């Protein structure tokens, strides 16, 4: 094993890009435009130049609306997708260009929890089989008894009765399935967990249970989280830092407290104001023009310019770079930079 550089960030994304080609194969790229046959390849620019750092022990939340590329970021880090450009480093090692075999040791350190607990467990395996499989795979030397102990230990720690191990996923409720999915990720004793909307498919009272479970696991196992969500109240509760994503670009990155007290990017402000508040019956949200444009033809300038009340010509022409603010947050916005936003 290599020495792990402990002072650096655990995870480091550098200018990562990912696009999905819509036209696969040669024939699909041939199009008829204005009386001429041309070759054109359309692609969805899901993630554009995203740079993020995750330090040990923190919970970085990535928020954004559907289509903003947050799930793609999670899948890029988990190695389920390969980036088109940029680098991903984990504990000082570059991981985005490794082969599957080379990644196996890393799999014990980095695990993922998925959104839909109804699809993330194999319905033909009972709980015991589902939990034993990763233990056996990653610890070939373990005896049967050791494997069983490990499984029982993980099941207890997520609050699933080990006596249910012969049951199949369909016999459990959504919340219990999500616990089992978390247990499966914990069987390999990871240090870093990517959670892709882990509670959005669950009921309110169950969401609290699963969030508590994840917080407990964080304290007991010293886990680091990358938490993908669209629910800002969860972010406020769970995250230490927040990255707000819009159309595949990070528009604001700040400590949770800073972001909620003093959101700077116009999109962040609109997003925060749109959350329905429990005790305040005056809906007073910032109305955004239009809807999120498709990421197929990205605007040339700031991706948010088409819906932004503060957009000017520069915003439409030139992409803003993230700039560090006095309170430590990073904001990619010309209006903030130029101090044009007067409330």
């Amino acid at each position, binding site marked *: 094993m290599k020495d792990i550089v402990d002072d650096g960030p655990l995870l480091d994304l550098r200018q990562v890009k990912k696009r999905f080609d819509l036209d696969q194969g040669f024939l699909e790229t041939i199009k008829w435009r204005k009386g001429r046959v041309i070759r054109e390849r359309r692609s969805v620019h899901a993630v554009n130049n995203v740079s993020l750092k995750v330090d040990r022990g923190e919970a970085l939340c990535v928020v954004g609306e559907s289509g903003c590329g947050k799930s793609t970021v999670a899948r890029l880090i988990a190695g389920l997708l390969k980036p088109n450009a940029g680098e991903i480093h984990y504990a000082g090692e570059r991981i985005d260009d490794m082969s599957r075999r080379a990644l196996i040791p890393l799999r014990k350190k980095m695990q993922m929890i998925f959104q839909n607990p109804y699809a*993330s467990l*194999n319905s033909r395996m009972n709980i015991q089989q589902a939990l034993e499989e990763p233990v056996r795979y990653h610890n070939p030397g373990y005896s049967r008894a050791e494997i069983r102990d490990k499984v029982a230990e993980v099941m207890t720690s997520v609050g699933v009765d080990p006596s249910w191990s012969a049951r199949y996923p369909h016999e459990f409720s959504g919340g219990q399935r999500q616990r089992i999915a978390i247990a499966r990720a914990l069987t390999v004793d990871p240090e870093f967990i990517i959670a892709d909307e882990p509670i959005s498919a669950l009921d309110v009272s169950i969401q609290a249970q699963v969030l508590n479970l994840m917080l407990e696991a964080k304290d007991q196992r010293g886990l680091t989280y990358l938490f993908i969500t669209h629910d800002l109240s969860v972010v406020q509760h769970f995250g230490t830092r927040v990255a707000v994503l819009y159309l595949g670009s990070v528009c604001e990155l700040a400590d949770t407290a800073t972001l909620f007290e003093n959101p700077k990017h116009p999109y962040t402000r609109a997003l925060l104001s749109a959350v329905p508040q429990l005790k305040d019956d005056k809906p007073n949200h910032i109305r955004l023009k239009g809807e999120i444009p498709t990421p197929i033809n990205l605007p040339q300038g700031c991706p948010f310019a088409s819906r932004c009340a503060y957009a000017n010509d520069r915003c439409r022409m030139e992409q803003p770079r993230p700039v560090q603010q006095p309170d430590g947050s990073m904001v990619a916005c010309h209006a903030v930079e130029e101090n044009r936003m007067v409330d």
Partner: protein
Amino acid sequence: MTMTTNPAKASRWSRIWNSNMGYSFRRNPVAVVSLAIFVFITAMALLAPIIAPFNPYDPAQIDIMNSEFPPVWIDGSDAQFVFGTDDQGRDLWSTILYGTRLSLLIGLCAVMLQAFLGISIGLIAGYVGGRLDSLLMRMADIQLSFSTLMVAIIFLAVTQAMFGSETFNQYAIYFLIAVIGVAEWPQYARTVRATVLAEKKKEYVDSARVLGFGPLRIMVRHILPNSLSPIFVISTVQVANAIISEASLSFLGLGMPPSQPSLGSLISSGFDYIFSGSWWITAIPGVLLVVLVLVINLLGDWMRDVLNPKLYKG
């Protein structure tokens, strides 16, 4: 709605009986009757050496003088031959039992071969995707654009000519299994590939990949068990098709030799005598073949209705 209160230790049999499939089976008289008939025919065929009064493969038991006795309910019959005899003097009842056994055996083995080829190719094409997928699926398309029978006829005719009828007859059963098996694999490959493409997008596959499992393990341990429903459905239809194919080939003289008749060759051998009044040599095995294929297809229909993922959420 899922039942979370199953008793922990129900026996396997009662679990199957009480499952959705068991329930819908009990409620469907067509399926019950079809299964009963299928089990009955299969049991008779398997037990042929015990049940059959004669051994049609043993020349010592055949007397040409007994040829073309009608079944017992017709005048001029011989009481020891229930369904009469064929042109060579074989007891038709015994011959049918042995013939059904051969037909079923060839059908099942051919389908197993199809399933093996088709499932492996379909899994790989679906999971790996890209150019390999295109290549394999174009192969399947090409194969499908030839009719099964045409391929089989050409192959069997050529082998018969190459090896001579003596050797061919000896190994006819293997040739038949191979040719029917190879000719129909694209049916499986296409279905399996389509299911794999759907399953591959599900999160349990991603979860397995994040856990570092290799492609073979993911395909065999995770995706395949979740793709079984359509495989079951096409398997029933394919068994029926394979039995028909075998019968057709044998009827055309390219299958089982008259000395070891399957249902098809029996029908064929009786066909020459149908206008001389000996209709039973063709008609009785013919009816049996129709019934056998019909019940298998009815079972397949029922299974498709039950396993249809749109109707049944598992």
